[in-house]
């Protein structure tokens, strides 16, 4: 078994009396897509926040590329190679698509404190931005103001920014949300190829996409992982069927 790229060990998080993470241990190996599923309110978002550094766990540890990053800030983890997409798009709405994507390049380059040269005249930045937009199919919309984008296009832009970071790990929070059948299919195809660049921790509601993409699935219910395994194992797990898939079948 290869070394995990991203790993949580026994994460615990409480909001007052509410336990939103109970001993959560998951891992992400090179080249795989690991999906975390669970009903609403299961604690998926809080888990993502802890992994990315926006929330501090009360207990437990987080490892990125073998390093303990539990106490690193969001930006430090990003610099260490973790790229995330947001469930609710976090984009600079007044800026153009191109500028949003360029932000990723600027961030990844570690050279944000340059005050004179226009960033959009920097051919190196431009080529990387255009490549990323091309890959997610947003090349034609590059000059548009982000607020003019459709919901689906915003999801694509989220992914494009993550791409510009050339990360070691992707953490994606519902990239299919609001995409529609056609969009989901394209995105599914895209993510399928992406796993070979960097593994993906995928939180997703779209079960078709999850079952089509995931190498492994972990099921989170009331803050606990109740099952973890391959697609077949999860499909067959009675506890999962009971707790979560029950209402689907």
């Amino acid at each position, binding site marked *: 078994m290869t070394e995990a790229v991203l790993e949580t060990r026994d994460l615990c998080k409480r909001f007052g009396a509410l336990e939103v993470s109970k001993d959560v241990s998951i891992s992400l190996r090179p080249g795989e897509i690991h999906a975390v599923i669970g009903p609403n309110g299961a604690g998926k978002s809080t888990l993502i926040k802890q992994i990315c550094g926006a929330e501090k766990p009360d207990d437990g540890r987080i490892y990125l590329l073998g390093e303990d990053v539990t106490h690193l800030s969001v930006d430090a983890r990003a610099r260490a190679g973790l790229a995330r997409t947001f469930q609710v798009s976090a984009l600079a709405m*007044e800026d153009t698509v191109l500028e949003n994507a360029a*932000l990723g390049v600027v961030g*990844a380059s570690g050279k*944000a404190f*340059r005050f004179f040269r226009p960033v*959009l005249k*920097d051919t190196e930045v431009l080529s990387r931005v255009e490549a990323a937009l091309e890959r997610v199919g947003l090349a034609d919309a590059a000059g548009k103001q982000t607020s003019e984008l459709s919901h689906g296009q915003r999801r694509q832009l989220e992914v494009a920014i993550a791409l510009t970071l050339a990360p070691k790990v992707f953490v994606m929070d519902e990239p299919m949300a609001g995409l529609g059948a056609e969009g989901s299919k394209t995105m599914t195809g895209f993510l399928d190829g992406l796993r070979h660049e960097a593994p993906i921790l995928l939180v997703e509601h779209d079960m078709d996409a999850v079952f089509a993409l995931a190498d492994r699935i972990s099921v989170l219910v009331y803050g606990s992982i109740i099952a973890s395994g391959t697609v077949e194992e999860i499909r067959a797990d009675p506890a999962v069927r009971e707790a979560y898939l029950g209402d689907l079948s």
Partner: protein
Amino acid sequence: MTREGIVNALVLVCLVLVPGWAFYAGETFTITLATRVVILALAAVGLNIALGLGGLVSLGHAVFFGLGGYTMGILAYHVQAYEPLFEWPFLFEGTKSMPAIWLAAVVLSALTAFVIGLLCLRTSGAYFIMITLAFGQMFYFFSISWSAYGGEDGLSIYVRNGFPGLNTLDPIQFYGLCFCVLVVVLWFASRLNRSRFGLALNAARQSPERVEAVGLRPFHLRLTAFVISGAVTGLAGALFADLNRFVSPAMFSWQMSGEIMILVILGGVGRLYGPVVGAIVFVALEHVLGDLSDYWHIYLGLLLLTVVLFVRGGLIGAVTGRRAAHD
């Protein structure tokens, strides 16, 4: 050229032609007014870097304006009074040279902005507005009671400071100098806006989580913006003191902070030339309304209300109708 570009060009042409006309017509006072416009615009361009790009609503920018003013006042006062500023580690008698004063004003303002920013940027929203106001009040009350440099009476500098190759006492030459400084700073601000830093700062205003997620610290970006902003406003303060040949605690007052902010909002927050248009309109109003009525503040208030309530994007927004363009 965009519509905003055309408006900007017109504004610049105006700032050249009007004083030019005034010079030939012998309307010296119009030149003085234009100088005031240009210097206030410069102060507001400084604030606009924090406010427009960084989203930092500072109600304490008079701190930097006043520091710039007092830098000029103190350096020149020691020359005027033949009392060295300090004698150790070397004898320093102050200076009457504008470039040296500007440098000192910029450095001092930047350092102060760094310290104030370090403390204030821990807060946000209404708290940020209020804590910057509090720092303004601290400087204000300190300057009032600091009798070594005149306290509330302020400091008078009898002769305007010099600039190599210019006769700064000649209003049109001093205007030209201030105008050039403004143009250079505007150019710098436009480059800044389009630079890597500007891109990141803009994004940090709109979506700080995003900026963090790409590996940048919004705090660092904001602090840097605050320092640059303070430095520019400080430079304006030094020029303002030279225009009046006088500096007083009024430059530190919270009304001064409010006025600088008014200039920015009146012209259009985040627009490169917003502060310039704001300053032109404000000084013109002060002048025209003042002639109409003793109670002209009422009309100024009504006008400001109208702009806030009904004109999106300030006056430039009203003319160009588009959002603040990023380039």
